[in-house]
């Protein structure tokens, strides 16, 4: 019986983990290239969620269509905030960029609050369910998972096959060196920030396909914290690492619940979260480059 529950939760966790992973790639990309930790990460996820919600409820458009729309909105926001704020902070101490990105997040949250309101919203996009022996999966979750993998693959192709992608990788490895070699570092920063934000906003769409309720201006905070753990699992500066970090995180979060629930004196949800932060600390101490890197 426990076995079936565990298998069910692990399946759910794997799928959620894929979406989590995709939702963290932007954070890792931005840190990897610019050295900026985007504390306002969750607010951009929220923008994606609202994009989906409004397209669906106002125009009746499917969340699939929201994906490219969110990418465009995200990239536009990314360029905007890069050239207005971030450009001045790439060489500043961490404190400055942490606080500035936090303020950007707050600005987005409050703007949405004043234009749309603080209601918790949701939408109903029913495209059927698959019933497995161990669990039941709505098709929307499966679409979200497949979408995450496709976007991760596209990013991989962009990195490896395009000129701009190669330049971004060069900057990630050595900022000064890349500058000497004729790469316009400033443009690469702007592009990476925009793509990072674009990915994050897009992940907001996928997250609502997984959990289509609870959409409100302040929904991002929880995802920011999760994204930190996931990013560290993957090595903080590596977008692919982040994707696999997400898968691992999803498995831990859902898989260990059933196990903690066996101990009556524990509150299993809080324990799974405790465990995830414990793992974060251990990795930072033992292997700050993340679980997947050889170095």
């Amino acid at each position: 019986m426990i076995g079936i529950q565990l298998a069910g939760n692990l399946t759910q966790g794997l799928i959620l983990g894929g979406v989590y992973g995709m939702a963290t790639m932007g954070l890792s990309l931005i840190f990897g290239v610019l050295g900026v930790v985007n504390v306002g990460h969750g607010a951009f996820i929220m923008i994606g969620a609202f994009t989906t919600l409004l397209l669906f409820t106002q125009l009746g458009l499917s969340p699939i269509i929201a994906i490219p729309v969110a990418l465009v909105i995200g990239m536009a926001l990314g360029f905007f905030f890069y050239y207005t704020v971030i450009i001045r902070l790439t060489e500043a101490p961490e404190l400055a960029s942490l606080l500035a990105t936090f303020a950007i997040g707050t600005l987005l949250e409050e703007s949405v609050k004043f234009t749309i309101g603080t209601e918790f919203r949701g939408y109903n996009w029913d495209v059927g369910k698959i019933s497995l022996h161990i669990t039941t999966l709505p098709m929307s979750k499966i679409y979200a998972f497949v979408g995450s993998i496709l976007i991760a693959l596209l990013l991989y192709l962009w990195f490896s096959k395009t000129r701009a992608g190669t330049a971004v990788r060069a900057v990630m490895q050595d900022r000064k060196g890349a500058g000497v070699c004729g790469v316009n570092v400033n443009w690469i920063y702007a592009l990476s920030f925009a793509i990072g934000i674009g990915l994050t906003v897009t992940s907001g769409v996928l997250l609502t396909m997984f959990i289509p309720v609870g959409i409100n201006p302040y929904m991002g905070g929880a995802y920011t914290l999760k994204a930190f753990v996931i990013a560290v699992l993957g090595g903080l500066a590596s977008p692919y690492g982040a994707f696999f970090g997400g898968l691992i995180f999803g498995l831990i979060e859902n898989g260990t619940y059933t196990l903690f629930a066996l101990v009556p004196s524990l509150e299993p949800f809080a324990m799974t979260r405790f465990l995830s932060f414990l793992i974060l600390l251990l990795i930072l101490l033992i292997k700050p480059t993340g679980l997947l890197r050889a170095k």
Partner: protein
Amino acid sequence: MKEYCLKSAIIFMAVFGLLLTTNALAVDKVVLGHPACLSGKFAKAGSQASWGIKACVKWINEVNGGVKIGGKKVPLVYKPYDCESKKEMVTSLIGRLATIEKVHGIIAAYSSGLTLTGAPVAEKYGIPYLSQGGASNRIFQQGFQYAVQVLSPATLYQAGAVDMLRKADPSAKRMALAFEDSEFARMVLRGAEKHAKELGFKIVFNRTYPKHVNDLTPLLSDLKAAKPEIILGGGHFPDGQLFARQMSDLDINVKALSMIVAVTLPAFREALGAKTEGIVGPAQWEFGVKYSPAAAKKVGVPWFGPTNEEFVKLAKEFSGGKTPDYHAAEAGAAPLVFVKAVELANSVEPDKIRAAFNKMDLMTFFGEFKINPDTGLQTRHSMVVVQWQGGKKVIVWPEEAATGKLYYPMPTFAEKAKGKVAVPR
């Protein structure tokens, strides 16, 4: 020498006393302060509360002609500040309300936590403190003298639903409890657990989940494995929405699902559509509830305040057209009972007002009001139970307040997806 001292003290007291009484006589307005949660984490419930209060204050001033004190009617002034849902702001704003604005009563901020935050400060200045969004029983176990509860305490939230289900289906035994791990919801859980056991239910699953949860899948998978017939759960709005949605995703079908808070809000239906059919939930108040001057007469208590229709109409003036929910109603009841207490005391002196509260037994649009004289805990107000039936909320319990019959058992999620509605024939 000693005598002289005594004499002067007496004279001083007398003069001072005179000053005080003249002051009391010179009351030209009654002021009610409120550290409102207009922003921050409770912004939603907090805005509702402020609409409700404004509506009832308007009713008092315009329909009732003000507050009757010392033989004449003086206006009721409402002083709200935004506390950002933060405790530092609550204490400092109550300090300001008490001393600068010289309020005669304070409506507590939303939530059990913030109600507790402000209580010692209100207590210090000796100002009647009305809890309109603090349901936890623990607030009233701390010996606060000026705290008064307007709404039903948390432990009674699910009592009506449990009674109702017992009556509807004496054979259903297996009950699952899954509540949010917040002060309020834990109290609800405790009350529900006790009551359900007394009525012979078997608790097959009993678990909490943290605030701000964004995926309940693991808990619900375990819950499904426990094969309950009835589920009681919830906490606040977002988790309730998530709970019902993910039950549908995991295809968990039970005979009845009763959830606190979320079910009663229109946004629940907006977000989940047909999935809400047949779900029940307790409410402090519901539009259409049959509290009326006639009902008051029937029970034999006085009526005060606007009728349900009047209240909703007034509240919409302040909400920009949004329908008030029970957060608005419970908050709106606070100025009503406060004004009644002031009138009864015929004074704005805190101790007299507080004593008047003890004597009060009345009905407003929100329901009945009577408190435990020692603790201030609400004892008479009762919850109603609503059910989503064909896209509308219908009051199904208690029978005397009901506007319709309970639909039981709840349709399965597959049936709901095919368009089956929970309207009883």
